[in-house]
Structures are given as C-alpha cells and as structure tokens.
C-alpha cells in the first residue's frame, strides 16, 4: 500500500528511473538465483539437462554432502579468522593513526600524513613480490600471521578516519578537557563513539575485501589446510572433472557467500551509506 501510494503522482522521469533500477536489480540477481537453483538440483539430472534449473524436483542433497567434506569447514574457519582479525586490526590502526593526524600536533605531521597517503597510488599487485620475500625471510608463509598482517595499515582507512575525526567539532573535545578527561579518555569515550559510522563503513569494506581476497592467500598459503575459502573453492573448481558435479560446486559457492549475506542483512544501513559515500561527510 505504501509503495503504491508513493508511485502515484511520481514524475515520469522518476518512474522510468525506477523501472530501470528494477530491471537492473533483476539482471543483477539472475546469476545468484541461477547459482542457488543449480545448487538445489540433482547432479546427474544436471548433466543430462543443464537447463532444468527452474523446474522441480529440487533436493538439498548437495548441502548434505557439503557437510561431509572436511576441507570446506577448515577453509571457512580460516577465512573467518583471517577476515575478522584483519578487519579488527585495520580498524585499530586506522583509528589511532587517524586520530593522531586529526588532533595531535607533532613536528612533521603533514609530511607523514602525505607519505602515508601516497600508498593510495600503489596497486597491491606491485608489492606482492617484495611482500612474499618479506614473509619468506621470517618463514611465516602458511601461517595466519602471513594472511592477516599485510595491509593492516591501509592508506584508505587512515585517510577516512583522519577526515572523520577532523570533522568532529573541536569544542566537543575541549569540553571534555574541561571535564578532566585525559587524552586517551577523550579518544576512547568521545571521539571513537562519534566515529562509529565511519568505522562501520571501513569495517564492512575491509571485511568484504579480505573475505573475497584471492591473490595473496593463493601465493602465501600453499598447504591446503591453510587455504582460505576463495583459494580452496578455486582449487576444487579447477578440478571440475574429478569433482562431484555442478550442483555440488554451486552449493559450495552459496555456502561461501553466506557471510556476505548475513553481513548485509545486519549492516544494511551502513553498507548503503558507505556505498553512497555519505559516511565521509
């Protein structure tokens, strides 16, 4: 009813835009629907007729099989540990650095700030070889440390948090100084709570990026028990001949995508705001 009410009297241009958006959304959703559909089909039936996705019978057999393969659970756990730890560390580093750049006067502050922003211009692939040798030198490949640590000091995170802390009115912090709050107390009890929207944005982007990251875990984790989901799934999918079939493969993908879906459902507000770029204001 509410939706119907809203479209009544809507200008023609907006109506067309709305229709275009709906079409795009459907187009965007199609692969997801297809993947989900295939994951619910019997594998042998799919071999005979790959187009049978949109008709019964459906089965959850692929998902039952999924629980029987041990490796997937390990990879999922690895991805979760790596993504969560990495995100938490990125948030800690970005908030501390951002607050420092925004609020604490020290000699050479601007120079250091600009230097840390230069990193924005360097593509991740360009440093992958030195990064590899670095972790090699410490014999850290195939450990969580190697998967988690690279990139915890991210120029984007530092820039975002600096901009956000700068936008908090200085008078609020001055009031806190008059209220006998220490520097750290001001950071912890005043600045951080006010920066939650920016932290949510940064956290979501970082988590998504790490969860979907492929290149670095592929290079660093060479032993299957240290694979993350992306690397593990890719490894099984390249062996499609030996694998248990298309439906099973798709069930794996759906499983891998679940955290994204959950994240989105819970943080929808922040994700939308982050994508709209509103969190920076």
């Amino acid at each position, binding site marked *: 009813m509410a939706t119907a009410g809203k479209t009544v009297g809507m200008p023609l241009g907006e109506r067309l835009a709305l229709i275009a958006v709906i079409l795009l959304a459907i187009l965007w959703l199609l692969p997801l629907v297809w993947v989900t559909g295939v994951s619910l089909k019997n594998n042998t039936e799919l071999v005979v007729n790959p187009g049978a996705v949109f008709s019964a019978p459906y089965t959850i057999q692929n998902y039952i099989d999924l629980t029987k393969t041990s490796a997937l659970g390990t990879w999922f756990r690895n991805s979760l540990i790596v993504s969560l730890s990495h995100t938490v560390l990125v948030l800690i580093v970005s908030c501390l650095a951002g607050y420092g750049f925004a609020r604490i006067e020290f000699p050479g502050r601007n120079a250091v700030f600009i230097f840390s922003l230069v990193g924005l211009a360097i593509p991740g692939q360009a440093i992958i070889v030195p990064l590899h040798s670095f972790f090699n030198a410490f014999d850290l490949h195939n450990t969580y440390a190697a998967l988690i640590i690279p990139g915890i000091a991210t120029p984007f995170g530092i820039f975002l948090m600096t901009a956000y802390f700068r936008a908090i*009115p200085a*008078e*609020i912090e001055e*009031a806190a*100084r008059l*209220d006998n*709050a220490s520097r750290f107390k001001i950071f912890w009890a005043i600045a951080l709570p006010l920066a939650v929207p920016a932290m949510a944005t940064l956290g979501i982007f970082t988590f998504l990026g790490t969860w979907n990251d492929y290149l670095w875990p592929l290079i660093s984790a060479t032993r299957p028990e240290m694979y993350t989901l992306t690397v593990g799934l890719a490894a099984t999918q390249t062996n499609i001949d030996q694998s248990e079939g298309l439906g099973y493969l798709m069930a794996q993908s759906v499983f891998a995508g679940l955290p994204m879906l959950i994240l989105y459902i819970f943080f929808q507000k922040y994700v939308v705001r982050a994508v709209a770029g509103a969190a920076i204001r």
Partner: protein
Amino acid sequence: MSRIDLVNINKKFGSYEAIADLSLAIDSGEFVVFLGPSGCGKTTLLRMIAGLEAVTAGEIHIGDRRVEHLPPGQRGVAMVFQSYALYPHMTVAQNMAFGLRNIGTEKSVIEAKIAEAARILQLETLLDRKPGQLSGGQRQRVAIGRAIVKSPEVFLFDEPLSNLDAMLRARTRVEIARLHQTLGATMVFVTHDQIEAMTMAQKIVVMSNGKIEQVGAPLDIYRRPATRFVASFVGVPAMNFLDVSNTEAVRGKLHVRVGETMIPTGVPAAGLSGPLTLGIRPEALRVDANGTIAAKVDVVERLGDKTIIHAMLPGGQAVVGEDGDTSALTFGDQVRFSVDSARTHVFDAAGRGHHAEVAP
C-alpha cells in the same frame, strides 16, 4: 567562588598579536562581561582563562593559585560554549555526569548533583534524551547544567545566547542572572551584544583590538565612556559625533561651535584644547521648537514609547535625535533640536572622553 587576576597577559598567534599586555582584576563572586566587536580577542582571553589556549606571556591567578600552566581540568573552571559542545552520543544525564565521573565522584553524589541541576534548570523530564532530541534552548540549559554540577569556582560563558531567538535570549538572560545570585559564583560572560552586557554585568570590560578600553559598571560605561570607541560602541542608536570648529569657555564650561551653531556643553573647559569632537546621545538631542540646532528630517522611526528622528545638518552631517511618542514629523520636514548640556561629552584628539556628568 574565587577572584581572577590577569597580569600582563600577552597572546600571539604566530606573528599576530591577539592580546597585547592586558591586566585585569575580577572580584570573587562578580559577574563580569567582556564586551567588544568581533575579532577583538574576547574568546581568546576567555580560552586562556579556561586553559584551552596557552598564554604567550603573563600570569593568570584563580583564587590564590597561579594557573596558567595547569591543564583546563585542574583550574576549577567550567565553560559554556557558544555551540554548547554537548556530547552527542550521551544522554542529558550522562553529559552532566561525565566530568564528575572523570574525577571519581561517588555515584550517589553524582546523582544528587544531577537532580539538583535538573531542578534548577527544569531539565527533569529530559534527562534520558540525547542532545539531538532537544531544542536549542534546552541544549543551552543542558550546557549550563553540565557546568553547574561541577560546582566550579568560576563559570565562563562564550556568547551562550547568540544561537537563541530574541524571546528566549531575553528569558535566558534573566535565568543566568538569577543563577548568579543563587550560586554566588564568579562568572565571566563574553558577548558582542551590548544589551546583554548592560543588563547582566556588574562590571563591563570593553575591549577593542586586543586591548581593554574601559572597565566599569554598566551605567558608568554608558554615562562616562572613557574613549570615543566606547562611546560609539555602547548605546543604540549610537552617540552622535560632531566636529568642533571653535571653542570658548563660559563660566568654566566649554561652549563649542559646530557648523554655524554655538552649543553650550556641561564639560569643564580647563585643559581642553586642540581638535575636539562633541558627543551627544540621541536622548540628549530632543526635538524642540526653540532648539539651537536646525536640521532636515530624513528617516522617522516610531518605537511606540518614543520616536527616533534621523536628520541632516546644513553641513551635510547626519544626526540622530528623539521626539515624543506622538511625533508628527515626516521626511523632508525642517526640525530644531535642543541639546541637554548636562549630558554632553567632548573627545580630545587622543579620543579620550570628558564628561558633563561627574562620577557618582
């Protein structure tokens, strides 16, 4: 409740001198207003007392402690900011509790103090709201409440009324004055609004360009402005300033020639020479058929209880005078003003004021 002494305070921002060698004594329990035009250094001075801005040179004493090197929290001052600077993520009660928690005050004491402040400021029903859910006037009261709970020796206000509408401003003025009477604390109030200064202050400090122009009681400032700057800054409509071309002394009093007219003043003639300026407030320049000054009416402002007449002297100079509530004057009329010589001022070349009225 403490006295404040500022001794030879100097403040530079880089090479720009915002405050030049300023000394001032504020008595314990006094309500002092810093008054001056925008950019004269009022906020800077207040922030130095608060400890939010370091002094470049000089001493600040609060009570018998020297405080210019102490952090803001240890000076025994509370400040109400122009923007209120409430903590947006905390409720009203949490806003008031924050400072007390930081010094380890007992929970029961905090609650009692918040209840007391809420009662004085009528915030009882708002304690669980966040600042975003309050009106401007309510936020303002929370900001004052946050200061009250700390029972500071000194309250500092930086233009706390400038974001309120005229009605609310008038009411809050009275509330703050009442608060001063109840608490008896020393209060320093910054404003560029002379009505606020005149109505609230026991002592006004008029500032300009980082310097003190005059310190005095409101009526003293109004009746005996020490400088031409003070005379022009205080009073609405502003004092008329007329160039004096010639003078003579009559029975010890100065008579001055302005254009073609000789105007008797009540200012003692002794020692006054050089280029002079005559100062007459609009209320001392009254429409009078037998008046000495002729002019042509320009704009008529009817205020209800009186009428403000803007007029032009033959020499082309604009003056502002007053008429009764039922003035019939309109644009273009010829008018005569008489001067109340007992309320005249003469300013010498250095801008110093000489007055017909003697000090009380």
